[in-house]
């Protein structure tokens, strides 16, 4: 994706009207190589211990997140806390079915998160469309549009399942295999093509910095 001199080719952003292209950054996403092994292990350990969830509830899964804040399940023990903006959060929990309209917002929020970022998808709707398998406006497989790290099955998994899912996510991060951001950057065209095929009124830049 980069031209001869190694400088990334700016994105076309056709979705935007001509006058507004100057208002958005048109740089494409890049892969960020992990640091040296020892440092990266330590950082991965820190990342796993401080998972900040983006407060973006889609579908029926979001309600499962709320109990985690209560005394009974208490996700704070594991260093997990909710954050209001994608800029400051590292985990994106997709709680259930995602309509096309929601997908547009999911993509925008996912792209505005800072790497390394992880996605946890709840429920069967994110895996194969679930009970909306034949609906015209839901997303059947979420990972065709954004890279997913952990799926938590169940038609809405209980909070305990969520905690188990997060433990699994911690393990993956510590193992250094949660490189969703680089994977998204590598197959950017593919992901973007899938997204554009579904989202009709794009009216936003190709990559939302």
């Amino acid at each position: 994706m980069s031209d001869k001199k190694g400088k990334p080719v700016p994105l076309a952003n056709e979705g935007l009207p001509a006058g507004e292209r100057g208002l958005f950054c048109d740089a494409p996403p890049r892969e960020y190589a992990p640091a040296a092994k020892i440092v990266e292990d330590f950082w991965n350990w820190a990342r796993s211990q401080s998972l900040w969830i983006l407060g973006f509830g889609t579908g029926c899964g979001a309600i499962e997140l709320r109990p985690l804040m209560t005394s009974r399940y208490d996700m704070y023990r594991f260093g997990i806390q909710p954050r209001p903006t994608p800029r400051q959060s590292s985990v994106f929990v997709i709680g259930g079915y995602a309509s096309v309209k929601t997908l547009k917002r999911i993509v925008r929020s996912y792209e505005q998160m800072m790497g390394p970022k992880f996605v946890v998808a709840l429920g069967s709707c994110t895996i194969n469309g679930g009970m909306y398998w034949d609906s015209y406006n839901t997303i059947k497989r979420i990972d065709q549009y954004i890279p997913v790290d952990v799926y938590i099955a169940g038609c809405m998994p209980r909070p305990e399942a969520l905690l188990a899912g997060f433990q699994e996510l911690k393990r993956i991060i510590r193992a250094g295999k949660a490189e969703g951001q680089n994977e998204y950057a590598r197959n950017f065209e593919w992901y973007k093509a899938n997204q554009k095929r579904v989202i009709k009124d794009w009216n936003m830049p190709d990559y939302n910095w």
Partner: protein
Amino acid sequence: MVNPLWLFALSLGAAFLLPLVDRLGRRIALVLVHGVTAAWLAAGLSWLAVLLSGGEAAEFGTAGFRAPLAIVLRVGLAEAAGVTAIALTGLLAAFSLTRSLREAPLGGAMALLMALMGLSGIVLTRDLFNLFVFLEISAIGTYGLLGFDDRKPALRSAFKYMIAGGLASSLYLIGVIYVYRLADTLNLDIAAAGTALSGPAGTAAVFFLLAALLVELKPFPANGWAVDAYETAHPGISAILSGASATALLLALWKILPLLGPAHLSLVAGSGLATFAAGNLVGARQDRPLRMLGYSSVAQVGLVAAVAALARLGGLGDGGADFAAAVAGGLLLNHLLAKTGLFLLAGAVEDDDARGRLAPLSLAAAGVLSAALVGLPPFPGFWAKWRLVRALADSGLWWILAIVLGGSLLEAFYVFRWLGLRAKGEAGEAPVRLGIRSAGPVLAALLLAAAGALAGIRGPVPDLLLWAPWAAAAILFLLDGTPGWLKGLLSVAAAAAFGAAAWDRLDGFRQFFAVMLLGGGALFSIAALRKGGPRRGLHPLLAAATLALGAILVARTPLEFFFAWETMTAASWLLVLRGRGGEKPALSYIVFGLGGAFLLMAGLAAGGWDGGIAAAGWPGLLVLVGLLVKAGALGVHVWLPGSYAESDDESSGFLSSALSKAPIFALFALALSLGAALPGGPWTSRALGWLGLATALGGALYAVYQEDIKRTLAYSSLGQIGYILLAFAAMDQAGWTTSLYLALNHFLYKSMLFLAVAGVIQRTGTRNMYEMGGLIKKMPVSFLSVLMAIIALSGVPPLSGFGGKWLLYSTLIGKGWYLETAVAFFASAVAFLYLYRLIHSIFLGQPKPSQANVREAPVALVLPQLVLMAVLMAVSVFPRLMLDPILALVGDRFPAAFVFEGTRLRSALGYWDGTLTMIVTGGVFALCLVWMLANLHNPQSVKQFNIVFAAERPLRPETTHYAWRFFEPYRKALGFLTRERAERFWDAFGTGAASVGGALRRLYTGNGQTYALHVVLYVAVLYLLLGVL
């Protein structure tokens, strides 16, 4: 000495032969008429030359006989001056009358000739009955003149004029015959010498003479007929009426003064003052210029009569005779020329029924004439008014002083309102070209300026340095066509030259202020080069104002000080008037400026005379209040925001950073001349402290809610002045050091702010903050300068602003003013609000697409800002650079409160080491910067719309830039503090005065008979009063 009788023969011969000459051609007849007037002028000037070079007055008998038997004419200094004035006004008016004289029947030219000859006769004759004959000749001439060009309104007012004239002449006749009956002579000098007129019958006889003359002089209740004539007649004739005939009648009154007893004199004085006050009050309510000028001339004539009477009555001034000549003469000359010019000008404009802006030349003339009329320097009216006020103060006639000053302030209000209208003109009207008709007013203006300058230089203000502002203004006005940069350099050179010339004459204290005042002027003259083009009128006024500030420093005697002070007020008023929306603010600026100046004048006049402005006791309080009005303390600050906001960007910068220091300097000078104390004892300093504090808090609170940048900065400087006043009020070494430190600091960062804002406004074209945004990328230097300025202004530590705050709080706590400290702290926190708002809504936030191609401010603005930034940084790092000279200045007047140990300044309470603070802050900042850069991984700079907008994309930059009503919650909480109480008070005051004018106005019902009734009632009341006094 030319014998006046030849002149009378010449005039009468010409008059009688005019019908024959007219047959040869009207043009030749008019040349003859103007020739005769010119002959009178030449004769008058020759008499003046002879008398001024030491000749004595000469008497000329008629029919070969001496005084008692025949009629005698006398040519003294007063008479020579009178004849010259009459002839001059006649000539000026004749030019404007020529065209209509040519069309009208010959009667008009005849009447003009007769009127002028009659007036000259009134001035010259010493015989009472002959005076009556000449009164009638001039009256008949005036009746003829009023109706000569067949204007229907003029005919109406002519008839009214005649009724009153007939009554006056009958009174006079009765008076004359009984004076003859009792004093057995018709000659003035013999009648005055004898004692026959002192009995009851004699007093009554003289009363009739006086009553007739007073009615002719158009006293208050009985002058309806006169004002109608002024309004409706041809402007040339109004000029003759208000100029020439007023002069003649006043000289006639002057002549019969010896006959008058004390009762008569007090009648004249009372009636004159009442006319002055009422004339101005009603004048303020007029919207038709000619009628307004009519009321103004009636008022001025009343004042001159009153002064003459008072001079003779109470021995006002040192000797009565020459004092009256100087003051009454000065006021009369001023009134004469100014009124003639204004009538001709206003009349020409009314005739064309033009409503646009005046052409530059006639506008300049109108400006000079109205300034002279009001008594601004350097015109003769100024010197006369100063001596008058001083004499009144000496003899303790305070209520008369109040009337005189109040009346002149009212007059200033409506004259400058008219000038403002003419300077701006209604929207969309083409500029008014007067062509040749503006020759008369321009000539009158030049004469006024020359007379004033001559009177000033030969009289009380010989020091040429004080005349530098006017010289600079004149020269630069002449060069107004040349390109802007040349004039800018000239004015900077002038300021530098003035500084060099005056430097050694100034003591350390004045040198400190000279740096700010002259430096500020030069700085903003350079800044004025930001725009190309000649920028007509800006440089002369800016240079004049700068040098006037310098003159204030150089002045030694109270009069010199006041002269420079009023020059500064006038020059800065014109600067404000020059601004685009400057008409209304300029009016309030000049009215408050003059109000303050008059208080100052009264205080100076009443105070002692040894050098500077020594004024202890309550005159000192007057001076203090006058200075506070000029500084813009809360309550009298209403003029400040409008003037700073509406004037050009450079001039508002100059007004706010340099000119606002003049009242501060004057306060210091006042305190120094009283031995480092305030007049009125300790409670004054506490009250001044609270007033300063209120101004600081008020200024800050008002500034928070403004949408217009320049209004925000205006209120901000109001606030900073409040701090300086608070510190000054502490009246100890700490307080004064703080005050001077704050003043210099305020000069630095306020100049930076105004320069930057000027650049921003020039580039974006708007003054509203919410219409800007994100200019940091396009105007980085301006951003940096504004950033440093707001850090300094809000007192955030590393920069020198904190030094000011530290000094202030150490002073206040040291002084025991604890509550003031808390409120000062709150005010400075509030200041932080509007400063942040200023930099946020202009430079940060969302840039607007329409301002995409904005470039950095012009070099003329950026360069001074860089210099100021360097100075500010230097002073912040090494506070001793600024504090050592100030501590030396304040020196030994008070017990030492601050002392320097190396770089640390120690006070009784605590210490502050500017250099160490800067080092520590810098070090810590560097540490954090390194830490940030080290951890910065793959930063991606993004554009303005790459923000987290609740998973949506922002729509338009205008709607995403949060700037409009930035502190709305603050308004909900503390909005009640900033309801415009001061403005409402002054508006109520204005309408109150206007309603009094309105009530008095009802007297002039327009019915000629009512006016006659007023005349007779006036005479009857005067007679009753005579009985009482």
